[in-house]
C-alpha cells in the first residue's frame, strides 16, 4: 500500500480480488516482512547517532530514549525537528512524539504527531486520544468501544479493578504506561553479530608485508569466531583507513565457504597485486578492518582431506585466478537441460558454477560410440550432401572443398527447435553420426524436414568425433 493506492480508495485488509475489481491494472507486491524488519533495523542502526538506546516497536516503530541528551541537539523541539528532517530525507513518512513513557510517546506519535509532553502531563495529553491508541490487541479495543469507552480519558476514569477483571493486569500496565503513571524499561535491541576484526596502529603501517601480516592475524581472529559458529565465509571485505582520513575497501570472493586465514590472505594478495589502481598507503594506515560480508554454514566434510583433495585444489585455484583476473574471466562450462545441442552447455564464472545442477544425461550406453561429437562447432558449416529423401542418411558430402564418401551412418536423431524462443518457426534438424571412407567421423544434420517444412533441405556439419 502506498499513497497512490490510498488515493484510489484501497486500504489494508481489502481482499486482493476486490481491489482488482476496482483497479484492474493494480501492481501487487507481496509483503516482505523479513525485509521490512531489516529496513527497520537499519533505521534503528542509523538512529544510534542520537542515542545509544534505540528499541524496536514492531512492526514499524522505534523508541529512542533521549534521557539527558536533548540539550546536545538544542533542546527537545529542536531534536525532534532534526530527527524528523533527517529520517524524512531518507524517504520515510515520519510521525514523532516525545513523552515521559514509551507507551505515551507511542500513542501520541500515532495519533497526535509532533506532541511534546511536559513532565507529568501524559495523562492529560492522551485523554482525548481514541482507544485504539492503547498498545493492546484489537479485541480489547473493540470491547472498550462497545462499552462506550471511546477515548483513553474515558477508559482512565474506570476503576482499575473493574478493568483488570476484564482485560487482565497486562492491560493495566499498558494503560498506566500510557497515562505516564508507570515507566516500563525499554528493551534494547540485541547487538548485531560481530563478524568483524580490526586493528588500530599507533604508528601507521606502510609496507605490504605488514599489511599481509595484519590481514593474516585479523583472518585468524575471524576464523575463531567463524569456527565457533560453524560458519565459513564467501565474501570478505578489507577496509584500509588511511591516517589522512581516506578509506579504501577491497572485497574478495570464494567459490566455497572457507575459514582458512591463509587462504583469505592469499586471495587478498592476488587481488592487491592485480589492482589497476594500486593501494596507496600514503602516510600509512592506522586502522585495518576485515569483515565477513557473507558467511554461510560450513559443513565439516568440506574441509576433510580425502578424495575431495583434487576438487578442492581446483576450487582454490579458481578462487586465486578469479581474485587476480576477475571472476568473469575465469569461466567453466555448466550443463543445461535442453535438447538443443549448441545450448547444451554455457560458460559461467567458475566460482558460481554448479556443475551438479544438471548432470549430463547418460546419452550413450557404455559399449557404444559417443552420441555427441567431442568438438562441437560454434557455427555449423554448410555442406553439399547427397542423401535419400525424405529422411534417408547422407551418402556423400563435400565440406571445405573435400569430398567424403560415407561408409557408416546412424540416424536420424530428430531435434525440433525450442519454438517458444523464436518468433518464426525454426526448421527441425535430423542429425546423423557418419563415418567416411577414411574413418573420420562427423556429426551432420539436415536442416528442415523435406516437404514438411522445406522444399530443399540444407545440410550442415555441426561437429567432429575424435
Amino acid at each position: 500500500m502506498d499513497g497512490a493506492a490510498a488515493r484510489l480508495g484501497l486500504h489494508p485488509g481489502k481482499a486482493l480480488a476486490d481491489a482488482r475489481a476496482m483497479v484492474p491494472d493494480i501492481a501487487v507486491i507481496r509483503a516482505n516482512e523479513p525485509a521490512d524488519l531489516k529496513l527497520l533495523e537499519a533505521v534503528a542502526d542509523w538512529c544510534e547517532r542520537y542515542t545509544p538506546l534505540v528499541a524496536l516497536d514492531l512492526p514499524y516503530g522505534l523508541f529512542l530514549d533521549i534521557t539527558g541528551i536533548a540539550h546536545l541537539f538544542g533542546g527537545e523541539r529542536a531534536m525532534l525537528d532534526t530527527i524528523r528532517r533527517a529520517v524524512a530525507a531518507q524517504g520515510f513518512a515520519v510521525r514523532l512524539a516525545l513523552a515521559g513513557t514509551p507507551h505515551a510517546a507511542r500513542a501520541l506519535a500515532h495519533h497526535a504527531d509532533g506532541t511534546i509532553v511536559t513532565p507529568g502531563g501524559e495523562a492529560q495529553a492522551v485523554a482525548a486520544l481514541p482507544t485504539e491508541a492503547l498498545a493492546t490487541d484489537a479485541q480489547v479495543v473493540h470491547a472498550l468501544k462497545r462499552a462506550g469507552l471511546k477515548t483513553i480519558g474515558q477508559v482512565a476514569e474506570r476503576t482499575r479493578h473493574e478493568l483488570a477483571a476484564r482485560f487482565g493486569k497486562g492491560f493495566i500496565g499498558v494503560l498506566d504506561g500510557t497515562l505516564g503513571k508507570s515507566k516500563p524499561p525499554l528493551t534494547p535491541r540485541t547487538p548485531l553479530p560481530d563478524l568483524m576484526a580490526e586493528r588500530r596502529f599507533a604508528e601507521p603501517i606502510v609496507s605490504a608485508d605488514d599489511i599481509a601480516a595484519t590481514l593474516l592475524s585479523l583472518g585468524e581472529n575471524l576464523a575463531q569466531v567463524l569456527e565457533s559458529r560453524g560458519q565459513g565465509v564467501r565474501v570478505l571485505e578489507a577496509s584500509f583507513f588511511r591516517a589522512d582520513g581516506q578509506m579504501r575497501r577491497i572485497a574478495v570472493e570464494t567459490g566455497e565457504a572457507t575459514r582458512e586465514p591463509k587462504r583469505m590472505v592469499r586471495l587478498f594478495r592476488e587481488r592487491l597485486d592485480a589492482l589497476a589502481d594500486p593501494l596507496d598507503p600514503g602516510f600509512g594506515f592506522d586502522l585495518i578492518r576485515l569483515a565477513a560480508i557473507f558467511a554461510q554454514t560450513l559443513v565439516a566434510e568440506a574441509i576433510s582431506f580425502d578424495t575431495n583433495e583434487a576438487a578442492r585444489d581446483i576450487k582454490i585455484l579458481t578462487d586465486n585466478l578469479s581474485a587476480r583476473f576477475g571472476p568473469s574471466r575465469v569461466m567453466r562450462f555448466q550443463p543445461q537441460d535442453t535438447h538443443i545441442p549448441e545450448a547444451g552447455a554455457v560458460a559461467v564464472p567458475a566460482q558460481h558454477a554448479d556443475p551438479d545442477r544438471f548432470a549430463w544425461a547418460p546419452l550413450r550406453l557404455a559399449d557404444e560410440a559417443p552420441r555427441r561429437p567431442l568438438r562441437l562447432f560454434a557455427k555449423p558449416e554448410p555442406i553439399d550432401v547427397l542423401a535419400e529423401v525424405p529422411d534417408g542418411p547422407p551418402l556423400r558430402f563435400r565440406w571445405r572443398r573435400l569430398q567424403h564418401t560415407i561408409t557408416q551412418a546412424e540416424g536420424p536423431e530428430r531435434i525440433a527447435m525450442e519454438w517458444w524462443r523464436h518468433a518464426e518457426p525454426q526448421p527441425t534438424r535430423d542429425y546423423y553420426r557418419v563415418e567416411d571412407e577414411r574413418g573420420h567421423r562427423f556429426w551432420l544434420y539436415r536442416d528442415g524436414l523435406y516437404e514438411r517444412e522445406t522444399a530443399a533441405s540444407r545440410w550442415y556439419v555441426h561437429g567432429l568425433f575424435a
Partner: protein
Amino acid sequence: MSAYAEIAVTTNFSFLRGASHPGEFVGQAAELGLSAIGIADRNTLAGVVRAWSSLEEIKPQTEKPLPKLLIGARLVFADGTPDILAYPTDRDAYGRLCRLLSIGKLRAKKGDCTLFIGDLLEWRTGLLLAIIPPPRGGGGWAGLENEYGKRIQRLAEALGKKDVWLAAALPHRGPDRRRLSALARIARGAGIALLAINDVLYHEPGRRELQDVVTCIREHVTLDEAGKLLEPNAERHLKSPEEMARLFRDAPDAIAQTQIFADRIGFTLGDIQYNYPDEPVPPGKTPDEHLADLAWQGALRRYPGGVPDRVVEAIRKELALIARMRIAQYFLTVHDIVRIAEGKEILCQGRGSAANSTVCYVLGITAVDPATFDLLFERFISQERQEPPDIDVDFEHERREEVIQAIYERYGHHRAALAATVITYRARSAIRETGKVFGLTEDVTSALVSGLWGSGGSDSWGEKKHARMKQGGFAPGNPIVERAVYFANQLHGFPRHLSQHVGGFVLTQDRLDEVMPIGPAAMEERYFVEWDKDDLDAMKIMKVDVLALGMLTCIRKAFALIRQYDPADYTLANVQNEDAAVYDMLCLGDAIGVFQVESRAQINMLPRLRPRKFYDLVVEVAIVRPGPIQGDMVHPYLKRRKNPKLVEYPAPAPEHGPADELKEVLGKTMGVPLFQEQAMKLAMVAAKFTPEEANGLRRAMATFRNLGTIDKFRDKLIGGMTRRGYTQDFAERCFKQIEGFGSYGFPESHAASFSLLVYVSAWLKRYHPAAFAAALLNAQPMGFYAPGEIVRDAREHWVEVRPPDVNSSEWDNTLEIAAGEPPVLRLGFRQISGFKEEWWTDRIAKGRGNGFSSFESFARRARLSKRALIILAEADCFRSLDLDRRESLWMVRRLPDDDALPLFAAQFVEDIPAETTAPLPLMPLAEHTVADYQTMRLSLRAHLMQFLRERYSGEGAMSCAEIRNARDGATAVCAGVVLTRQMPGTAGVVFITLSDETGVCNTVVWPSVFEAYRKEVMGGRLLFIKGKIQRSAEDVVHLIAESFTDRTQDLDTLSEEDVRLPPGSQIEDLAYPKPDPRAPLHRHPRNVRVLPKSRDFH
C-alpha cells in the same frame, strides 16, 4: 500397400499428456486412411464414448471406408511393470477391463488408479495385450538387451504369451533401427510378435507445441525450465499407413501385426446392452403390467371425481409407447425413488420434460396435469429419437442426502453410482495455467483474467482479446502474452479432471462396474462413473437426476409452521388454485422470496406481463431467459398481451403451405415463440426440418461439444424459412432465439413444473407472510436475497419481527402465536454470526425450562463458554433479563477466560463478587444499529441511512422514495447503501441496487460510465449516484448513472460519534420499534469498517 492400425493413442483424457480430443484422432485417422484406431488412455475409458460418437457422426457424411474404432486402455502399473495396452475382444472381456480399472480406482484416492500386475493376471481373459517397452536403464547395449529381454520374457510368460505383443515405436532418437532390431530379437526370444505403434499424443504434428505446454502444466515448470521433460521432436502424431510402412521397412511384420490385432477385436461400444433395474416389480408381473397397475391406481388418486376420458386415453397411449420402447423399468425406478422420498416426508417434484407425461403425473413424479396444458408426451419420449427419457426430480436441498443414501441402500454401490462431470479448462483456468508456463507472474495472469469479469457463459477469448489485454495493462502484441493467450484458447475445452455430477444417478440391473469403470468421489462412500451426461445419452444409458431445490425445503418448512396455527394441512397439491389476490400481489412486482420471479429482471417484468392465471406464470418464468431475450421476442409478446388485436402468425408464401401453419405451434403464446420446443417445432413446420434434423438441432443447442455444427443448422433454418416465404428478419430472430436457448433454455413443461412452485410460494407470501419469511430464513442459503432483505420485506407486509432473545428464540426462526393476533416472527439464533447450533441444542434448550429469570440463572443453567456468552451479548440477546447490549457485554467480559471449561464460568457467576461500578455511557441508537448489522447483518431498529439523512439532504441527495416519485428525465442524485451489483451477460452493463430507509433504487450503469467510475462502482458500499431518471410506461423507475461519489467512509462516523436521528423521525425507542411500513428497514453491511460484500452476481 499394407494396412495400418494405430493402437497406442493417448488423448487429452489422459490429462495433461494427450494434446488432442478423441474426436480429432478419429477424424484424422479417417483422413489418413488407417484401418483402425485404438483409444488407450491411461487407466481410463473416459474418452472412448466421445471417440465413438465422433465416428458415428462422420459415418453418414462419407463414402470412404472408415477406421474401425478399438476401445482399450493403457494400463499403467504402480509396481514397476511396463505400461501395457489392453484391448477387449468381446463384451465379456470389456466387462473385465471395466472391473480391473474399477478395482484400481477404488484402491486409490479420487482421480487416481493404482494397478498391480496381479490385477491384470486376474482379469486378463479375452484381452489383447501389447507391452510397451520401458525406458532404457544404464549399462551397455548387450546388457540392456539381455536385461530387457529377460524382463519382457518373464512378463510375456506370466501373461500366457497368447494374445501378447511387444509394441515398438520409432521415436527418431538416433539409434532407432538398432533399437528396433533389438526389440525384434527380444520379442522372438520371448515368443511373441512385434507390433508397430507410434505411441501418439496428438493427431497432427502442429499440436506438439500444445503438448509441450500441457507437459509443463503437468510438471509445474515453465517452458524455459522444462528441458528434457519435453519431447525432442514433433513425431508423436498419427502417421499414414505409407509412412508407418516406410519407417518399419526393417520389420514389415510389425505393421502386418497391427491389422491382425485389430481384426481380432470383435467388440464395439454398440455392444453394450444396458439393463434397467427391475427391483420394484412384484413376482409374477411384467414391468409393463406393474407400471400399468400403478398408473391406473395413481389416476384414481389424482382424479377422485373420476378420471377424465382424455386422461384415460393419454395414459393408454403412453403405456403402449413405453411398452414398445421397453422402458417401463425406468418409470418404475423413478417412481420408486419418489416413493422413498415420500416415505421420509421429503418434498419432491419432477422437473423438465417429464412434465409432459401423464403417466409421470399420475405416478406422482410430476405435479402439473399435462392434460390441462396440452403438454405433449412426444416431447418427452419419441420413438424416432431412440433415446432414453430423462426424468429429473428435485428434492428439498437440505434432505437430498437422505434420498441419495436410500438409493445406495436399495441398489448397492455396485449397481448405483453418480454420473461424471467432465471439468474442462475454461478461459480463466486456461490463461492461469498457460500464463505460468510462459513465466508470466500471477499478477499478470490475474490482470488478464480480471478482464474476463462478468463475461458469463461465452468466456472464450475472441475478438475482445485486444481490448482485454489493454484493460490488463498490456500492449497488444506483447509476444509472450499473445502466446499465452493463444495456447489458453487452444487449451480451452480440454478436459481437466472428472468430477461427480451433482445428482445424476446411473442405476443398473447387473453390475455397473462391468458397464463402465467406477471410482471413488471426494466424498466418503460416494462413487462415480467415468462417463458424463452426454456420454451416457450417447450410450442410451438411463440416468435419474436427483437434484436439490432450496424452495422445496422452504415450502415444507412453511407448511410445518402454518400447522401451528392453521388447522388446514397444506400440501403442494391442496393450496387454493388461481387465487386472485395472489396474482394481484405478483402484478405489483411484490415478489421478494417468491420462487423464480424474485430476481430484479423478473420483478420488473411482473408489472408489465401482469399474470392473471397459471399459464401466465409459465410464460413469466420462461420469458426472462436468454433465449426469448436474444431472439427479441419479449416486446412483441408484451405488446400482444396488451392488445390482442396485434396477434398475427407469420406465414409462408401461399404456394408453400397454409397461412396458419404456425398457429398450432405458436397459438398459446400469441404468435411469439417463447419455449424451447416451440423453436424446434417451428424448425420442422416452417423450415421443413425432418424430426431427426430438429433433434440434431436440439442437441447442437444443448451441448457445447457440437459448437461447430450449429452454423450448419443456421443456414438450413434461415434458408428454409426464407425460401418458403417467411421474412428474413423473423427467420433470423428465430435462430438467435434457438442459440439463446442453447445454454439456458426452458421448455414449456419445465416452466410449468417450476410455475407450480412459483404459485405456491407466492400464495404463502400473500397469506402467511410470517411463516414464509421464517421458512425462507430457515432454508438459507437460497434465493437472491440476504436475510436482511427478507426481514425488511416481511415487515413491509405488516409482520411483526422480534429480535433474538435467550428466553424466546430457538435455533431456527420461529412463530409466536397469540390468539386473535397474527403470528409474530421471532428471529432465531441461526441469524447470529458465529453462533453454533449445539449451543442451542445442548445448552440453552436443555437449561431453559420455564425461562431464565436472571443473567446468573442463565449462566448457571445454560453453561455456555465465555465466547458464546460474548456472542449472545454482542447480539443483544439478554433484553428479557433487563440487560442491554452494553451492560451484558461489560458483565460477560468479567468472566474468566476459559473457553474449554464453561463450567468455571457458570460457577464464577454464581459466586460472582459484587461489583459496584459507575454506569457506562448509554449506547446511542446509531451504534446499536451498527452493532446489529455486525452481529446479524440486519437491524430491526433503524436503517443506517436514517442517521445520515439530514446531512445528505443538506447536500441535495435524494432518498430512494424521492427518486421513485421524481419526474421522468430529471437529473437527480441518489444516496444509498449498495445492496446488489449485477453484470449480466457480456454487454458490460452493471445494475446496482441502492437501499435506504425508504426502499430501493435501481440504477443502470452503461459500460462507458462503468469504465470511468470503475473503482467506485466496484468498491463503494455507500454511494452517491448522479444520473437521469427514466420512467417506463409500466411506471418502473430507473436511475441511469452518470457519475459516482464513494461515501463509504461516512459509515465510520456512525459508531464513533453520537449520531442522532433527525427530528420528527419515527423511531425514538431505543429498543425495538413496531414496524412501520412507510419506513421499511433495509439490510445493511455488517461491519462498518470492513463492510461485507454486497451480493454480486455475474
